[in-house]
Protein backbone atom coordinates (compact mmCIF):
# COMPACT_ATOMS: atom_id res chain seq x y z
CA UNK A 1 0.00 0.00 0.00
CA UNK A 2 1.23 3.43 -0.92
CA UNK A 3 1.66 5.51 2.21
CA UNK A 4 0.58 8.93 3.44
CA UNK A 5 3.25 11.48 4.35
CA UNK A 6 4.27 13.74 7.20
CA UNK A 7 6.02 16.77 5.74
CA UNK A 8 8.22 19.34 7.39
CA UNK A 9 8.48 22.73 5.71
CA UNK A 10 11.44 25.03 6.28
CA UNK A 11 10.89 28.68 5.44
CA UNK A 12 14.01 30.51 4.28
CA UNK A 13 14.36 34.28 4.27
CA UNK A 14 17.58 35.95 3.28
CA UNK A 15 19.90 33.40 4.91
CA UNK A 16 17.69 32.73 7.93
CA UNK A 17 14.96 30.21 8.80
CA UNK A 18 11.68 31.58 9.94
CA UNK A 19 8.59 31.10 12.00
CA UNK A 20 5.57 32.35 10.12
CA UNK A 21 2.28 33.44 11.59
CA UNK A 22 -0.39 34.59 9.13
CA UNK A 23 2.53 35.10 6.72
CA UNK A 24 4.33 37.49 9.08
CA UNK A 25 7.87 36.23 9.51
CA UNK A 26 10.08 35.97 12.54
CA UNK A 27 13.68 34.86 12.21
CA UNK A 28 14.75 31.85 14.26
CA UNK A 29 18.28 31.04 13.07
CA UNK A 30 20.52 30.24 10.14
CA UNK A 31 21.33 26.84 8.60
CA UNK A 32 23.90 26.12 11.31
CA UNK A 33 21.29 26.79 13.99
CA UNK A 34 18.85 24.44 12.22
CA UNK A 35 21.52 21.72 12.14
CA UNK A 36 23.09 22.16 15.57
CA UNK A 37 20.59 23.71 17.97
CA UNK A 38 17.50 22.35 16.31
CA UNK A 39 19.13 18.98 15.61
CA UNK A 40 17.50 18.80 12.21
CA UNK A 41 19.57 15.76 11.25
CA UNK A 42 17.61 13.76 13.83
CA UNK A 43 14.21 15.28 13.08
CA UNK A 44 14.70 14.57 9.37
CA UNK A 45 14.56 10.82 10.13
CA UNK A 46 10.95 11.24 11.31
CA UNK A 47 9.56 12.87 8.21
CA UNK A 48 8.51 11.50 4.82
CA UNK A 49 9.33 14.58 2.80
CA UNK A 50 11.04 17.94 3.22
CA UNK A 51 9.72 21.15 1.70
CA UNK A 52 12.08 24.12 1.43
CA UNK A 53 10.49 27.45 0.59
CA UNK A 54 12.28 30.72 -0.06
CA UNK A 55 9.92 33.36 1.31
CA UNK A 56 12.40 36.24 0.95
CA UNK A 57 10.37 39.23 -0.19
CA UNK A 58 12.97 41.81 -1.14
CA UNK A 59 16.14 41.26 -3.18
CA UNK A 60 15.46 37.55 -3.54
CA UNK A 61 18.66 35.69 -4.45
CA UNK A 62 18.27 32.08 -5.52
CA UNK A 63 21.99 31.33 -5.22
CA UNK A 64 21.98 32.47 -1.61
CA UNK A 65 18.95 30.25 -0.92
CA UNK A 66 20.69 27.25 -2.51
CA UNK A 67 23.92 27.91 -0.63
CA UNK A 68 21.94 27.97 2.62
CA UNK A 69 19.84 24.84 2.14
CA UNK A 70 22.81 22.85 0.88
CA UNK A 71 24.09 22.99 4.45
CA UNK A 72 20.96 21.13 5.53
CA UNK A 73 19.98 18.63 2.83
CA UNK A 74 23.10 16.38 2.74
CA UNK A 75 21.68 14.67 5.85
CA UNK A 76 18.12 14.37 4.57
CA UNK A 77 17.18 11.03 3.00
CA UNK A 78 13.64 11.62 1.82
CA UNK A 79 12.28 13.40 -1.26
CA UNK A 80 12.83 17.15 -1.18
CA UNK A 81 10.48 19.70 -2.74
CA UNK A 82 11.96 23.17 -3.20
CA UNK A 83 10.36 26.41 -4.25
CA UNK A 84 9.39 29.93 -3.42
CA UNK A 85 10.10 32.68 -5.91
CA UNK A 86 10.33 30.46 -9.00
CA UNK A 87 9.79 32.92 -11.86
CA UNK A 88 10.95 30.93 -14.90
CA UNK A 89 11.80 27.50 -16.26
CA UNK A 90 15.47 28.28 -15.57
CA UNK A 91 14.75 28.95 -11.88
CA UNK A 92 13.08 25.55 -11.62
CA UNK A 93 15.85 23.81 -13.54
CA UNK A 94 18.46 25.32 -11.24
CA UNK A 95 16.67 23.83 -8.23
CA UNK A 96 16.47 20.39 -9.88
CA UNK A 97 20.22 20.61 -10.48
CA UNK A 98 20.71 21.45 -6.81
CA UNK A 99 18.97 18.68 -4.93
CA UNK A 100 15.27 19.20 -5.69
CA UNK A 101 13.19 16.11 -6.42
CA UNK A 102 10.19 18.36 -6.94
CA UNK A 103 9.63 22.09 -7.28
CA UNK A 104 6.92 24.03 -5.47
CA UNK A 105 5.18 26.60 -7.61
CA UNK A 106 2.65 29.21 -6.59
CA UNK A 107 2.39 32.53 -8.48
CA UNK A 108 3.34 31.09 -11.89
CA UNK A 109 0.33 28.75 -11.83
CA UNK A 110 -1.80 31.78 -12.40
CA UNK A 111 0.56 34.20 -14.13
CA UNK A 112 2.63 31.99 -16.44
CA UNK A 113 1.00 28.58 -16.83
CA UNK A 114 3.14 27.93 -19.95
CA UNK A 115 6.18 27.60 -17.65
CA UNK A 116 4.38 24.79 -15.80
CA UNK A 117 3.94 22.98 -19.13
CA UNK A 118 7.64 23.37 -19.94
CA UNK A 119 8.74 22.04 -16.54
CA UNK A 120 6.33 19.13 -16.82
CA UNK A 121 7.58 18.17 -20.28
CA UNK A 122 11.14 17.93 -19.04
CA UNK A 123 10.72 16.63 -15.48
CA UNK A 124 7.22 15.14 -15.40
CA UNK A 125 4.05 16.37 -13.73
CA UNK A 126 4.87 14.37 -10.59
CA UNK A 127 7.80 16.72 -9.98
CA UNK A 128 5.58 19.80 -9.67
CA UNK A 129 3.86 20.70 -6.41
CA UNK A 130 1.22 23.37 -6.96
CA UNK A 131 0.99 25.66 -3.95
CA UNK A 132 -2.23 27.50 -3.18
CA UNK A 133 -2.56 30.13 -0.44
CA UNK A 134 -6.06 31.03 0.72
CA UNK A 135 -7.95 32.95 3.39
CA UNK A 136 -11.44 31.99 4.54
CA UNK A 137 -13.67 34.98 5.38
CA UNK A 138 -17.30 34.31 6.33
CA UNK A 139 -17.40 31.09 4.33
CA UNK A 140 -15.74 32.61 1.24
CA UNK A 141 -12.31 31.26 0.31
CA UNK A 142 -10.13 33.99 -1.21
CA UNK A 143 -6.95 32.90 -3.05
CA UNK A 144 -3.67 34.77 -3.17
CA UNK A 145 -0.36 34.79 -5.04
CA UNK A 146 2.88 36.78 -4.59
CA UNK A 147 3.45 35.69 -0.95
CA UNK A 148 -0.18 36.33 -0.04
CA UNK A 149 -0.16 39.92 -1.22
CA UNK A 150 -2.20 39.71 -4.42
CA UNK A 151 -5.74 38.37 -4.45
CA UNK A 152 -6.95 36.34 -7.44
CA UNK A 153 -10.31 36.88 -9.12
CA UNK A 154 -11.15 33.21 -8.40
CA UNK A 155 -12.29 31.60 -5.18
CA UNK A 156 -10.75 28.37 -3.90
CA UNK A 157 -13.15 25.88 -5.46
CA UNK A 158 -12.69 27.32 -8.96
CA UNK A 159 -8.98 27.85 -8.49
CA UNK A 160 -8.49 24.23 -7.37
CA UNK A 161 -10.20 23.04 -10.52
CA UNK A 162 -8.12 25.44 -12.63
CA UNK A 163 -4.91 24.11 -11.07
CA UNK A 164 -6.03 20.47 -11.21
CA UNK A 165 -6.23 20.54 -15.01
CA UNK A 166 -2.59 21.63 -15.23
CA UNK A 167 0.28 19.10 -15.42
CA UNK A 168 1.05 19.04 -11.69
CA UNK A 169 1.43 16.10 -9.33
CA UNK A 170 -0.15 17.40 -6.15
CA UNK A 171 -1.44 20.49 -4.37
CA UNK A 172 0.03 22.14 -1.27
CA UNK A 173 -3.03 23.79 0.24
CA UNK A 174 -2.05 26.45 2.74
CA UNK A 175 -4.35 28.52 4.92
CA UNK A 176 -2.88 31.97 5.52
CA UNK A 177 -5.29 32.57 8.38
CA UNK A 178 -4.33 29.34 10.17
CA UNK A 179 -0.63 29.65 9.31
CA UNK A 180 1.51 29.39 12.43
CA UNK A 181 -1.44 29.42 14.83
CA UNK A 182 -1.26 25.82 15.99
CA UNK A 183 -5.07 25.79 16.09
CA UNK A 184 -5.40 23.00 13.53
CA UNK A 185 -5.98 22.85 9.77
CA UNK A 186 -8.95 24.54 8.13
CA UNK A 187 -11.19 21.49 7.82
CA UNK A 188 -13.86 23.51 5.99
CA UNK A 189 -11.83 22.85 2.85
CA UNK A 190 -12.60 19.11 2.90
CA UNK A 191 -15.53 19.30 0.42
CA UNK A 192 -13.22 21.07 -2.08
CA UNK A 193 -10.44 18.59 -1.40
CA UNK A 194 -12.83 15.73 -2.08
CA UNK A 195 -13.97 17.26 -5.37
CA UNK A 196 -10.64 17.19 -7.22
CA UNK A 197 -8.57 14.36 -8.63
CA UNK A 198 -5.13 15.22 -7.20
CA UNK A 199 -3.39 14.38 -3.93
CA UNK A 200 -3.58 17.22 -1.40
CA UNK A 201 -0.96 18.30 1.13
CA UNK A 202 -2.73 20.02 4.03
CA UNK A 203 -0.76 22.97 5.38
CA UNK A 204 -1.26 25.84 7.75
CA UNK A 205 -2.24 25.50 11.39
CA UNK A 206 -1.05 22.12 12.71
CA UNK A 207 -0.20 22.45 16.39
CA UNK A 208 -0.09 18.87 17.61
CA UNK A 209 -0.39 15.29 16.42
CA UNK A 210 -4.19 15.22 16.71
CA UNK A 211 -4.41 17.81 13.91
CA UNK A 212 -2.35 15.55 11.61
CA UNK A 213 -4.52 12.55 12.43
CA UNK A 214 -7.75 14.51 11.99
CA UNK A 215 -6.73 15.60 8.47
CA UNK A 216 -5.50 12.17 7.35
CA UNK A 217 -8.77 10.61 8.50
CA UNK A 218 -10.95 13.34 6.97
CA UNK A 219 -10.41 12.54 3.28
CA UNK A 220 -8.72 9.91 1.14
CA UNK A 221 -7.55 12.76 -1.07
CA UNK A 222 -5.38 14.13 1.71
CA UNK A 223 -2.10 12.44 0.90
CA UNK A 224 0.10 14.40 3.28
CA UNK A 225 0.07 16.70 6.28
CA UNK A 226 2.62 19.47 6.63
CA UNK A 227 3.90 21.73 9.35
CA UNK A 228 6.29 24.65 9.14
CA UNK A 229 6.17 25.35 12.83
CA UNK A 230 9.70 25.08 14.20
CA UNK A 231 8.58 25.28 17.81
CA UNK A 232 5.37 23.28 18.07
CA UNK A 233 7.26 20.16 17.00
CA UNK A 234 10.59 20.62 18.72
CA UNK A 235 12.54 17.79 20.38
CA UNK A 236 10.69 14.47 20.23
CA UNK A 237 7.35 15.96 19.18
CA UNK A 238 7.78 15.14 15.50
CA UNK A 239 9.01 11.54 16.02
CA UNK A 240 6.14 11.06 18.48
CA UNK A 241 3.64 12.52 16.03
CA UNK A 242 4.79 10.16 13.33
CA UNK A 243 4.48 7.21 15.69
CA UNK A 244 0.94 8.27 16.60
CA UNK A 245 0.06 8.66 12.91
CA UNK A 246 1.39 5.16 12.19
CA UNK A 247 -0.45 3.58 15.09
CA UNK A 248 -3.76 5.37 14.61
CA UNK A 249 -4.05 5.40 10.82
CA UNK A 250 -1.82 2.49 9.73
CA UNK A 251 -1.07 4.48 6.58
CA UNK A 252 2.53 5.61 7.14
CA UNK A 253 5.80 4.12 5.99
CA UNK A 254 7.79 1.77 8.18
CA UNK A 255 11.35 3.01 8.62
CA UNK A 256 14.21 1.60 10.71
Amino acid at each position, binding site marked *: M*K*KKRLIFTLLHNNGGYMLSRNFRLQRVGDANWINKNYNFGKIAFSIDELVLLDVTRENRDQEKFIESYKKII*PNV*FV*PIAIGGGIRSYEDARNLF*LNGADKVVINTLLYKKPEVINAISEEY*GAQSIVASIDYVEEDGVFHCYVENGTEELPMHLEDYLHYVAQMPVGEIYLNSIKKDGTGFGYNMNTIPFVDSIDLPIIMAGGAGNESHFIEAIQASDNIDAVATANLFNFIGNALPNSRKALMEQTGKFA*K*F*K
Partner: protein
Amino acid sequence: MKPLVIVDYGMGNIYSVQSALRYIGIESVYTNDSSIILEADHILLPGVGSFHVAMDNIRRLNLDKILSEAVMTKRIPIMGICLGMQLLGKSSTENGFTEGLGFFDGKCEKFESSVDLRVPHVGFNDVTIPANTRLYNDIEDHSDFYFVHSYRMVTEVTDGIAYCDYGGRFVASFEKDNVMGTQFHPEKSQRNGLTLLQNFANTK
Protein backbone atom coordinates in the same frame (compact mmCIF):
# COMPACT_ATOMS: atom_id res chain seq x y z
CA MET B 1 38.73 0.05 0.00
CA LYS B 2 38.41 1.60 -3.45
CA PRO B 3 35.77 4.29 -3.96
CA LEU B 4 32.46 3.03 -5.26
CA VAL B 5 32.09 3.86 -8.96
CA ILE B 6 28.94 5.67 -10.09
CA VAL B 7 28.56 5.39 -13.85
CA ASP B 8 28.26 8.76 -15.63
CA TYR B 9 26.20 8.51 -18.81
CA GLY B 10 24.81 12.02 -18.55
CA MET B 11 21.48 11.15 -16.96
CA GLY B 12 21.77 10.71 -13.26
CA ASN B 13 20.96 13.28 -10.66
CA ILE B 14 23.52 11.86 -8.31
CA TYR B 15 23.59 14.62 -5.68
CA SER B 16 21.48 12.66 -3.20
CA VAL B 17 23.09 9.28 -3.97
CA GLN B 18 26.50 10.75 -3.19
CA SER B 19 25.14 12.43 -0.03
CA ALA B 20 23.75 9.10 1.16
CA LEU B 21 27.01 7.26 0.45
CA ARG B 22 29.01 9.98 2.21
CA TYR B 23 26.69 9.72 5.22
CA ILE B 24 27.46 6.01 5.62
CA GLY B 25 31.16 6.61 5.06
CA ILE B 26 31.51 5.35 1.50
CA GLU B 27 33.55 7.36 -0.96
CA SER B 28 32.39 7.47 -4.54
CA VAL B 29 33.57 8.65 -7.95
CA TYR B 30 31.29 9.68 -10.82
CA THR B 31 32.90 8.64 -14.10
CA ASN B 32 32.63 6.89 -17.46
CA ASP B 33 36.35 6.15 -17.65
CA SER B 34 36.68 2.48 -18.68
CA SER B 35 39.90 1.90 -16.75
CA ILE B 36 38.26 3.03 -13.50
CA ILE B 37 35.03 1.08 -14.14
CA LEU B 38 36.91 -2.13 -14.96
CA GLU B 39 38.98 -1.90 -11.77
CA ALA B 40 36.01 -1.09 -9.47
CA ASP B 41 34.97 -3.12 -6.45
CA HIS B 42 31.36 -1.95 -6.79
CA ILE B 43 29.50 -0.19 -9.58
CA LEU B 44 26.35 1.86 -9.19
CA LEU B 45 24.19 2.65 -12.22
CA PRO B 46 21.88 5.58 -11.39
CA GLY B 47 19.33 7.10 -13.71
CA VAL B 48 16.31 9.30 -14.10
CA GLY B 49 14.55 9.88 -17.41
CA SER B 50 13.85 7.96 -20.57
CA PHE B 51 15.04 4.38 -21.14
CA HIS B 52 15.53 5.02 -24.84
CA VAL B 53 17.68 8.15 -24.37
CA ALA B 54 19.65 6.41 -21.62
CA MET B 55 20.52 3.43 -23.85
CA ASP B 56 21.52 5.80 -26.68
CA ASN B 57 23.89 7.60 -24.33
CA ILE B 58 25.28 4.34 -22.96
CA ARG B 59 26.01 3.00 -26.46
CA ARG B 60 27.48 6.28 -27.65
CA LEU B 61 29.94 6.19 -24.73
CA ASN B 62 30.68 2.49 -25.42
CA LEU B 63 29.52 1.81 -21.87
CA ASP B 64 27.48 -1.22 -22.96
CA LYS B 65 30.71 -3.05 -23.87
CA ILE B 66 32.64 -1.73 -20.87
CA LEU B 67 29.87 -2.68 -18.42
CA SER B 68 29.47 -6.08 -20.06
CA GLU B 69 33.15 -6.80 -19.50
CA ALA B 70 33.01 -5.48 -15.93
CA VAL B 71 29.81 -7.31 -14.96
CA MET B 72 29.68 -10.48 -17.09
CA THR B 73 33.40 -11.24 -17.46
CA LYS B 74 35.00 -9.72 -14.37
CA ARG B 75 31.92 -10.34 -12.18
CA ILE B 76 32.12 -6.96 -10.46
CA PRO B 77 28.99 -6.33 -8.31
CA ILE B 78 26.70 -3.79 -9.93
CA MET B 79 23.50 -2.21 -8.65
CA GLY B 80 21.10 -0.17 -10.74
CA ILE B 81 18.78 2.37 -9.15
CA CYS B 82 15.39 3.25 -10.66
CA LEU B 83 15.97 3.70 -14.41
CA GLY B 84 19.45 2.25 -13.83
CA MET B 85 17.83 -0.95 -12.56
CA GLN B 86 15.56 -1.11 -15.60
CA LEU B 87 18.54 -0.67 -17.94
CA LEU B 88 20.11 -3.84 -16.50
CA GLY B 89 17.10 -5.78 -17.83
CA LYS B 90 16.43 -7.12 -21.31
CA SER B 91 14.12 -4.44 -22.67
CA SER B 92 11.56 -1.71 -22.17
CA THR B 93 8.49 -0.68 -24.11
CA GLU B 94 9.15 3.01 -23.28
CA ASN B 95 8.96 5.05 -26.55
CA GLY B 96 8.71 1.84 -28.54
CA PHE B 97 10.71 -1.32 -27.91
CA THR B 98 14.27 -0.67 -26.69
CA GLU B 99 16.83 -3.29 -25.75
CA GLY B 100 18.55 -2.92 -22.40
CA LEU B 101 21.95 -4.10 -21.21
CA GLY B 102 20.48 -7.56 -20.68
CA PHE B 103 22.40 -8.58 -17.55
CA PHE B 104 19.14 -9.59 -15.84
CA ASP B 105 16.20 -11.48 -17.32
CA GLY B 106 13.46 -8.89 -16.75
CA LYS B 107 11.52 -6.57 -19.02
CA CYS B 108 9.85 -3.23 -18.39
CA GLU B 109 6.33 -2.25 -19.29
CA LYS B 110 4.17 0.75 -18.48
CA PHE B 111 1.74 0.64 -15.58
CA GLU B 112 -1.78 0.46 -16.93
CA SER B 113 -3.37 3.56 -15.48
CA SER B 114 -7.01 3.46 -14.45
CA VAL B 115 -9.41 5.38 -12.27
CA ASP B 116 -7.94 3.68 -9.23
CA LEU B 117 -4.32 3.77 -10.28
CA ARG B 118 -2.46 7.03 -10.60
CA VAL B 119 0.63 6.84 -12.85
CA PRO B 120 3.47 7.42 -12.19
CA HIS B 121 3.69 5.43 -8.98
CA VAL B 122 5.09 8.03 -6.58
CA GLY B 123 5.66 7.61 -2.87
CA PHE B 124 6.64 5.22 -0.12
CA ASN B 125 5.43 1.68 -0.62
CA ASP B 126 6.23 -1.54 1.20
CA VAL B 127 8.34 -4.31 -0.19
CA THR B 128 8.12 -8.07 0.28
CA ILE B 129 11.67 -9.22 0.89
CA PRO B 130 13.03 -12.45 -0.64
CA ALA B 131 14.59 -15.34 1.24
CA ASN B 132 18.39 -15.53 0.99
CA THR B 133 18.92 -11.86 0.41
CA ARG B 134 22.07 -9.81 0.78
CA LEU B 135 20.54 -6.43 0.00
CA TYR B 136 17.99 -6.61 2.83
CA ASN B 137 20.32 -7.83 5.53
CA ASP B 138 19.17 -6.16 8.77
CA ILE B 139 16.02 -4.75 7.09
CA GLU B 140 12.59 -6.03 8.17
CA ASP B 141 10.12 -7.54 5.74
CA HIS B 142 7.47 -5.04 4.48
CA SER B 143 9.70 -2.06 5.10
CA ASP B 144 8.92 0.97 2.95
CA PHE B 145 11.00 2.52 0.18
CA TYR B 146 10.51 5.55 -2.07
CA PHE B 147 9.36 4.93 -5.63
CA VAL B 148 8.84 7.25 -8.58
CA HIS B 149 8.29 5.52 -11.94
CA SER B 150 5.81 4.99 -14.77
CA TYR B 151 7.31 1.72 -16.06
CA ARG B 152 7.83 -1.36 -13.93
CA MET B 153 9.77 -4.55 -14.36
CA VAL B 154 8.28 -8.02 -14.56
CA THR B 155 10.27 -11.25 -14.66
CA GLU B 156 9.95 -15.02 -14.71
CA VAL B 157 12.82 -15.22 -12.22
CA THR B 158 11.65 -15.90 -8.66
CA ASP B 159 14.91 -16.20 -6.76
CA GLY B 160 16.16 -13.02 -5.09
CA ILE B 161 13.17 -10.91 -6.14
CA ALA B 162 11.59 -8.36 -3.81
CA TYR B 163 8.06 -7.41 -4.82
CA CYS B 164 5.98 -4.30 -4.49
CA ASP B 165 2.28 -4.10 -5.20
CA TYR B 166 0.73 -1.23 -7.15
CA GLY B 167 -2.19 -2.36 -9.25
CA GLY B 168 -0.45 -5.74 -9.35
CA ARG B 169 2.88 -7.19 -8.31
CA PHE B 170 6.10 -5.92 -9.87
CA VAL B 171 9.84 -6.18 -9.24
CA ALA B 172 10.90 -3.83 -6.43
CA SER B 173 14.44 -5.22 -6.57
CA PHE B 174 16.42 -8.16 -7.86
CA GLU B 175 19.70 -9.74 -6.89
CA LYS B 176 21.22 -12.48 -9.00
CA ASP B 177 24.86 -13.21 -8.32
CA ASN B 178 26.70 -9.92 -8.90
CA VAL B 179 23.79 -8.18 -10.68
CA MET B 180 21.40 -6.19 -8.48
CA GLY B 181 18.87 -3.45 -8.92
CA THR B 182 16.27 -1.48 -7.00
CA GLN B 183 13.29 0.16 -8.65
CA PHE B 184 13.03 2.42 -5.60
CA HIS B 185 15.47 5.11 -4.53
CA PRO B 186 17.47 3.88 -1.50
CA GLU B 187 18.96 7.37 -1.14
CA LYS B 188 15.43 8.71 -0.51
CA SER B 189 14.29 5.91 1.80
CA GLN B 190 15.56 6.90 5.23
CA ARG B 191 17.59 4.29 7.15
CA ASN B 192 15.99 1.46 5.16
CA GLY B 193 17.79 2.77 2.10
CA LEU B 194 21.04 3.68 3.83
CA THR B 195 21.24 0.12 5.18
CA LEU B 196 20.57 -1.30 1.72
CA LEU B 197 23.33 0.84 0.19
CA GLN B 198 25.69 -0.37 2.91
CA ASN B 199 24.65 -3.96 2.20
CA PHE B 200 25.40 -3.50 -1.49
CA ALA B 201 28.83 -2.07 -0.66
CA ASN B 202 29.45 -5.16 1.51
CA THR B 203 28.76 -7.62 -1.33
CA LYS B 204 31.71 -9.44 -2.85
